[in-house]
């Protein structure tokens, strides 16, 4: 096929010609960009030079390109804006790949600008050349290689439209150096008709009416909400709260959806899925109407598919038509923006005959309260002053003491046990406060994410709930934290193991802890000090609260090394290949896992 032609429609325009790098920055400013996370290199020097000469856009210098992407993801997730990344050609672009896929899996709007060797050198194995559009095609929503100056501004405008429209995602623009050095025409965003137009659809009102009729007929209903509600914007969370108040139905949420509905509301059953609560999972299994709002039936949510919510009428609202009937067959699929559709559901609920199953709904709630009474997140903390701290105790106290500060709080996590405990114990009352790598499960996400969140919200309290293994994967970002004096609080739940790997090895591989011990760890206190931060360590229960308080009150960056019990497992847990009503609730039931089938073991 020939090079880019007529991909975007240009409307009437008046032309200004500028050096490509200036055209790029002008387009970014027009798109509302305030911050770029990046790292310079040969192929992007013209862009860095143009950045130097202006003061509309702030550049945040990270210490690794992967971190630039995670920081931009957190910036996007916590503000609702598009995150922007700038990396150089070759290794700069390949280092960004993990972050791009992370954003793709979690539907985070990003625009990644990558340098490229000049067009005449493309294909010659030039210094720092990579086939960046080829490498990033499967990890982006769309990507561009700008070969002609006149394609530059339209590509930037369209990239932002693609990143933020429909199901959001990352878009990459590869910029050969001759394009950024040479002159290019500037066109306004208004002069470009992005191709996203042809992908938008209006929600089907008749389907919404049928869905609401099914909800009205439900005796054991359940909302199962996801990251789509967050992506739709704060109004969607508002609408969800109204719909729940109106119906009185219980709500469970995916990992990505936490905060869309208040975690402290009594109608919230906690997260569902592999490490979800007992009440959320049993309600999912036993409900008769399941209303999935902006969630995608991920394998971490469904467990064994043929036993997933077996008797329910399933309604699925998603902006991405390809998600409907992808994994679980649903009875009513509705395509469109979940916030809008919830508003239409509210209208429809009020229009249709009154809900006639109040008594059954009460009985359903009574059943749920019975499950809740089991208190599935309980753990046995030895209360002796010098007792070893349980990781659950540490995370619960971080949550409670952070809440006591009354400050607007953003929480990032790394990936593993600590992430799941944080998801269980932190109760978010607002959307956009929870920053975690859900779909891809990228270790090393949390520290750069904390950078992005603190840059976006300089006055907020930003916490990174971390594991000692994960956080080492992007530990160099302590440099970024130091440079910009970001007062992030990093709580390392240090159990000297890759905790989730250790847990699976205990449960599924005969306690053979193959390569999962974190040997030769750094002294995190000294590490903090060497990066101009404050380092604290706590090893005994009686010092836990004081140490957490000290960290929260300090006005600069802090690393707290919380030395916790090494052998603790994260429960409840639906073992791989099992159904929602086959949860392991605690250590006393671990023997169950020994019976996991070969098929179960093959699942990740």
């Amino acid at each position, binding site marked *: *096929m*020939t*090079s*880019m*032609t*007529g*991909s975007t429609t240009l409307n009437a325009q008046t032309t200004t010609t500028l050096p490509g790098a200036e055209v790029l920055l002008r387009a970014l400013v027009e798109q509302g960009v305030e911050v770029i996370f990046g790292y310079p290199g040969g192929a992007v020097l013209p862009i860095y030079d143009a950045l130097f000469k202006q003061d509309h856009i702030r550049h945040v210098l990270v210490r690794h390109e992967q971190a630039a992407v995670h920081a931009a993801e957190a910036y996007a997730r916590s503000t609702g804006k598009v995150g922007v990344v700038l990396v150089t050609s070759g290794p700069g672009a390949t280092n960004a790949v993990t972050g791009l896929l992370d954003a793709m899996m979690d539907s985070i709007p990003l625009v990644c600008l990558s340098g490229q060797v000049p067009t005449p050198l493309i294909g010659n194995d030039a210094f720092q050349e990579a086939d960046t*559009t*080829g490498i990033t*095609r*499967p990890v982006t*929503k*769309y*990507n561009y*290689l700008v*070969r002609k100056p006149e394609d530059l501004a339209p590509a930037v405008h369209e990239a932002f439209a*693609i990143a933020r429209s429909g199901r959001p995602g990352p878009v990459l623009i590869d910029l050969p150096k001759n394009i950024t050095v040479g002159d290019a025409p500037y066109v306004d965003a208004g002069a470009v008709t992005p*191709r*996203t137009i*042809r*992908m938008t659809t209006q929600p089907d009102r008749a389907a919404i009416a049928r869905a609401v009729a099914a909800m009205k007929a439900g005796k054991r209903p359940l909302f199962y909400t996801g990251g789509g509600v967050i992506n739709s914007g704060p109004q969607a969370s508002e609408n969800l709260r109204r719909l729940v108040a109106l119906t009185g139905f219980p709500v469970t949420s995916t990992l990505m959806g936490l905060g869309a509905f208040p975690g402290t509301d009594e109608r919230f059953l906690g997260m569902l899925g592999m490490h979800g609560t007992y009440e959320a999972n049993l309600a999912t299994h036993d409900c008769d109407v399941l209303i999935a709002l902006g969630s995608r039936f991920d394998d971490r949510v469904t467990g064994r598919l*043929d036993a997933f919510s077996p008797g329910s009428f399933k309604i699925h609202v998603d902006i*991405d*038509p*390809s998600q*409907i*009937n*992808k994994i679980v*067959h649903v009875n009513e699929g509705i395509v469109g923006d979940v916030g809008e559709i919830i508003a239409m559901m509210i209208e429809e609920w009020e229009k249709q005959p009154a809900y006639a199953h109040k008594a059954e709904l009460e009985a359903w709630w009574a059943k749920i309260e019975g499950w809740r009474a089991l208190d599935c997140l309980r753990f046995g903390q030895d209360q002796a002053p010098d007792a070893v701290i349980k990781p659950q105790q540490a995370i619960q106290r971080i949550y409670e003491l952070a809440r006591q500060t009354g400050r607007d709080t953003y929480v990032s996590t790394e990936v593993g046990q600590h992430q799941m405990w944080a998801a269980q114990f932190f109760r978010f009352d607002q959307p956009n406060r929870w920053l975690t790598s859900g779909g891809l499960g990228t270790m090393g996400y949390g520290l750069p994410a904390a950078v992005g969140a603190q840059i976006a919200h300089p006055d907020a309290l930003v916490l990174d709930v971390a594991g000692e293994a994960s956080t080492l994967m992007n530990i160099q970002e302590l440099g970024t934290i130091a440079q910009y004096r970001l007062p992030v609080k990093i709580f390392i739940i240090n159990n000297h193991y890759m905790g989730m790997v250790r847990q699976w090895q205990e449960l599924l591989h005969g306690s053979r802890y193959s390569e999962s011990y974190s040997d030769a760890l750094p002294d995190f206190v000294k590490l903090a000090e060497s990066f101009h931060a404050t380092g604290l360590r706590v090893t005994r229960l009686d010092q836990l609260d004081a140490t957490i308080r000290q960290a929260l009150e300090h006005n600069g960056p802090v690393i707290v090394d919380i030395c916790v019990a090494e052998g603790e497992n994260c429960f409840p847990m639906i073992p791989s290949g099992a159904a929602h009503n086959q949860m392991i609730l605690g250590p006393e039931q671990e023997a169950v896992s020994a019976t996991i089938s070969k098929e179960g073991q093959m699942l990740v």
Partner: protein
Amino acid sequence: MQVEVSGSAVISLLVDNESGALARIVELFSGRGYNIQSLTVAPVDEHGHTSRVNIVTTGTQSSIWQVKTQLERLVPVSRVVNLTAEGPYVAREMALVKVVSSGEPRTEALRIAQAFRARAVDTTASSFVFELTGSTDKLDSFIELMRPLGLVEVSRTGVASICRGPQTIQNF
């Protein structure tokens, strides 16, 4: 769960004629484990801005539905139609078939070619190249018949397809 039967489907797409568009489509199939039996692509509008891609794929009804919805997510793809599901359509491909033989097999090959309305587009004392257009089935059976008669090489275009009647891919 009910067991779904596997079948083949012809999917036609209109795509922006831009760099990487075909790669996106092909990588979607390989990345998600879908199958491509044949693929054709060529510009079809007067300015060469739009290409039509025809893909023959196999799978269960629900997996072919998945293929279609996944293709619709691609930015340069403006239209996706599962012709097999949407009603009557015409699907044709062309094959060039080289047969090297002499004596009785050579005569037999020529006779069968005439019966199939294949044209000999190249003839030497020891070989024929037949050109044959038709449905995939027809081409398959012709090639099978040529196999014992000195078949040495086959080149096929893959399927070009279009729906029957006044309807077009644009107004599905």
